[in-house]
């Protein structure tokens, strides 16, 4: 789960990572809260959106007094930045930046090690640095069981051409960030820029953090963060029903069992000239309730014009899935045609259950390609 900048900065404070003093506001009335804080002008007003390029879009403004602050806040709140509406602002003290660096921690899938990227060319697009000046991007692979070694880190700081005078402060900062990455169960911790201020103090000016939700059981704060991240209504509904759902742009609603098969169904629909409206995996051992929950979720999406149910029976038996489909649809007015493709364990039995309990809106297809063609053609 991707965090907003202000949420990432809450985590920074928990891990003793220096970041500017700030408050978060939801509306202009909240600006009065500033009086109770000891924030000093100039301040930076930052739109809280999960998309890059907010600075260029006018979502970041420097203000020197209350009047400017109100004007800027009024301008940025509600702004549409690449389809993301600004609902919160982070207002923080502006820093006099002496130098800007880049640092990130991720898990490198090929080497199965943690990867630290460090560069003294901060404040700009790091992929551009990697492409144009690869020598400016220092890569350090870290053994997950041994951890980050101080000697290795010091060498990386030298390699990144960061001044020796800053070594103590920057080491301390990087160890704190590493602590957040590992003990905080983050998939990504990226600070750009990591800034030098006040003659050698190191401060994290931005935050880009992705949490590993598999570790939510050992982090109470994950759930708190999750509550504050808005998700579209249909996705929320699917989540509450325990379904794995992702909204897409097309019109063919997809229900399948197994992530790989569902992904593959989206592809086959596209090959037949259609576009999937969603990814929806009902998982293994699908029961009648799961099928009806899945159909309810699709009913909530007005873009859906037809539905393709694609099931491969392994341990899941197709006859049980067919019973589930019959139970979920019997006597109901369906808003669209449903094409069902059953294959694998007890597929024949499943198909005959559907034929014996016909519904005018349900068609049974012989194979995946035919099913996709029929669902696209409806």
């Amino acid at each position, binding site marked *: 789960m991707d965090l907003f900048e202000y949420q990432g900065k809450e985590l920074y404070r928990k891990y003793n990572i220096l970041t500017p003093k700030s408050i978060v506001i939801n509306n202009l009335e909240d600006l009065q809260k500033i009086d109770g804080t000891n924030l000093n002008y100039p301040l930076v007003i930052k739109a809280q959106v999960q998309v890059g390029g907010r600075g260029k879009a006018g979502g970041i403004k420097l203000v020197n007094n209350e009047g400017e602050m109100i004007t800027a806040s009024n301008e940025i709140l509600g702004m549409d930045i690449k389809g993301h509406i600004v609902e919160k602002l982070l207002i923080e003290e502006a820093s006099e930046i002496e130098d800007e660096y880049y640092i990130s921690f991720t898990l490198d899938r090929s080497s199965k090690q943690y990867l630290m990227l460090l560069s003294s060319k901060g404040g700009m697009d790091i992929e551009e640095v990697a492409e144009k000046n690869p020598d400016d991007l220092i890569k350090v692979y870290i053994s997950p*069981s041994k951890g980050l070694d101080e000697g290795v880190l010091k060498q990386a700081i030298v390699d990144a051409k960061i001044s020796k005078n800053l070594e103590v402060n920057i080491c301390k900062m990087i160890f704190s960030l590493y602590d957040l990455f590992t003990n905080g169960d983050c998939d990504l911790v990226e600070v750009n820029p990591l800034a030098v201020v006040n003659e050698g103090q190191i401060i994290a000016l931005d935050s880009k953090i992705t949490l*590993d939700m598999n570790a939510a059981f050992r982090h109470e704060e994950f759930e708190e963060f999750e509550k504050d991240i808005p998700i579209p209504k249909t996705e929320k509904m699917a989540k509450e029903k325990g379904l794995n759902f992702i909204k897409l742009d097309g019109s063919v609603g997809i229900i399948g069992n197994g992530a790989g098969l569902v992904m593959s169904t989206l592809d086959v629909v596209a*090959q037949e000239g259609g576009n999937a409206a969603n990814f929806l995996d009902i998982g293994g051992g699908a029961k009648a309730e799961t099928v009806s929950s899945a159909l309810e979720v699709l009913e909530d999406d007005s873009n859906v014009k037809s539905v393709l149910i694609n099931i491969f029976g392994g341990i899941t038996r197709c006859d049980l899935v067919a019973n589930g489909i019959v139970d979920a649809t019997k006597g109901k007015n369906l808003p669209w045609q449903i094409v069902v493709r059953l294959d694998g364990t007890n597929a024949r039995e499943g198909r005959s259950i559907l034929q014996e309990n016909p519904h005018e809106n349900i068609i049974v297809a012989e194979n995946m390609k035919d099913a996709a063609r029929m669902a696209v053609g409806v």
Partner: protein
Amino acid sequence: MSILIDQNTKVVVQGLTGREGQFHSLRNREYGTNVVAGTRPGKGGEEVEGIPIFDSVKEAISETEANTALVFVPPKFAGEAIIESSEAGCSFVVCITEGIPAKDEAKVFDEITNNYKTKLLGPNCPGLISPGKSNVGIMPHEITKSGKTGVVSRSGTLTYQAVHELTQIDIGQSTCVGIGGDPVPGLSFIDILALFESDDDTDSVVMIGEIGGTSEEEAAEFISSSMSKPVVAYIAGVTAPPGKKMGHAGAIISGNKGTAKAKIGALKKAGATVVNDPTELGIALKSLL
């Protein structure tokens, strides 16, 4: 022959007393797999349908000579369970558990690689089956048939789909392996391809990949440099949008990395036959044999 498991495989199931663990262990035993022991701390001395339960894997091994562990332990404890069976001397560990924190996985791999000779399949995988010999995991054996094609995949249901297609047109399988959908699986495509390449009873390979990471590209390099047997491949997720986890934790296009297009290109260049639809895998392979 087959790879990783055969009639001599003796399985200890960690978490055999749980609902899933019990269901699949008994299914595996019914198929003919030597399920010799289960473990559950505090339940040593009990048994489940004639399978003895031990407090630890170490005890289970000394009493039953188990050589392979099958892990059904919940995510919170699965990392420790893998280390326990590796330390106790299992040469092969299969972890079915889904939802293990990435940091736990990374540490477990690192520790196993540095300290033990154990091979780990998974986590978050359906396990593997050598048809007619042994089934270790949750694969439906009904759709398999003994033969000479090796199957390796990141996705459970797509593996079943592919195996089903092969069986329908009378192409049997030597071993079907699900390496799992997590970002950092234990055994990778390359490991399994290398085992198939050196297995006398495997004459061809079906490989099923998906978006995310670069393991298919790495596999393509291996196919090009080191494989003599024909490979037919399918990659899921051509139309998946970037930045979204498509069900599997590892199935995500990050920036411009991990796209299906790049994987398909690399596999084609390496000489593999790549099909557009998973139901075409069987027919495509038949035309090569």
